[in-house]
C-alpha cells in the first residue's frame, strides 16, 4: 500500500489537513502572543509600584478601591 497515493480526491484530503494545521497553529500563536502581552502589561504595572495586596511585602500602603472594582480575580 502506498501511503502517499491519495487517489483522485487528494486535493480535498490535503485541504482538510491544511485547515486543521492552520487553525491549530493560529490558536497556538494567539495563546502565545496573548501570554506575552499579559505578562508585559503586568510587569509594567508592577514596575510603577502597582501590586496586589497579596504581593505587597513592604509597609507601603496600597491604593484603596471598592470591592466591586476587583471582581473576577482572587
Amino acid at each position, binding site marked *: *500500500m502506498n501511503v502517499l497515493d491519495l487517489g483522485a480526491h487528494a486535493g480535498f*484530503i490535503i485541504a482538510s489537513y491544511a*485547515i486543521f494545521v492552520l487553525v491549530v497553529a493560529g490558536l497556538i500563536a494567539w495563546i502565545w502572543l496573548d*501570554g506575552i502581552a499579559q505578562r508585559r502589561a*503586568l510587569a509594567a504595572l508592577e514596575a510603577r509600584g502597582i501590586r496586589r495586596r497579596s504581593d505587597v511585602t513592604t509597609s507601603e500602603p*496600597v*491604593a484603596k*478601591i471598592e470591592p466591586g472594582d476587583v471582581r*473576577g480575580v482572587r
Partner: protein
Amino acid sequence: MALVDFANPTRFVALTARVTPWLIALTIALFAVGLYGTALAPDDYQQGATVKIMFIHVPCAWLSMFVYATMAISSLGTLVWRHPLADVAARAGAPLGAAFTFVCLATGSLWGKPMWGTYWVWDARLTSELVLLIMYLGLIALWQTIEDPLKAARAVAVLTLVGVINLPIIKFSVDWWNTLHQPAAVFRMDGPTIDPSMLWPLLVMALAATCLFLTLHLLAMRNEILRRRVRTLRLMEAARPGVGSERSA
C-alpha cells in the same frame, strides 16, 4: 494539598507551569502515533482515500461538543458557587470550541463534496453543528460586550446552559431525522461498526486532539487569569490618591 486548593487562581497558574510541558509532550507523541496509524489505515471500500479526512473531522466533531459540555459545567460553577476560576475556564474554552467546530464543519464540507456531490446541505446534523458554531461566537461576543466581568460571567453562564439543549440534538440528529450524514459508527449500543484497522488510529487521534485541547485550555486559562490581574491593577492605579487630580490639572 487537596484538589480543591488548585481552584485558587495563583496556585492554578503554578500548577499550569508544571503540567504544561508534560501535556505538550503527550500531545506530540499521541499525534505522531495517530498520524502514523492514519497513514497506514486502508482506504475505505466505498469512499477510497477520502476516509482519511475522518481522522481529523471526527475528533474535531467530538471536541466541539466536549468543549461546550465543559463550558456548561463551568457555567454551573459560576452560577452556583460564583467561583472566578469557573468563568475563567468557560471564557478560555469558547474560542477553542469555536475553532474545533469550524474545523469540523470545514473538513466535513470538504469530505462531503466528493462523497455527496455537494459541500453543504441543510441536513439536521450539519445545521445543528453550524448552530453550535454560532452559539460559540455569540458567547464570545457577549463576553466582549459586557465590561463588568461578574455581570458578563452570569449572563454568559445562563446562555451557555440554555445552549446545552443543542448537544443531544447534534448527537441524535442522525437518529431522529432522515439525514444525509451517516449515523454513529463508534459510540453505539452494539459496538463500533468501523474496522479495527481504522478504529485504533481514530481513537488515538481523538485522544491526541483532546490532549491538545487540554494543553491549549490550560494556557488560555492562565492568560485569562493574568488579564484579570492586569485589569484589577489598572483599576487600583486609577484609584490611587492624586491620580484623578493629576489628570485634571
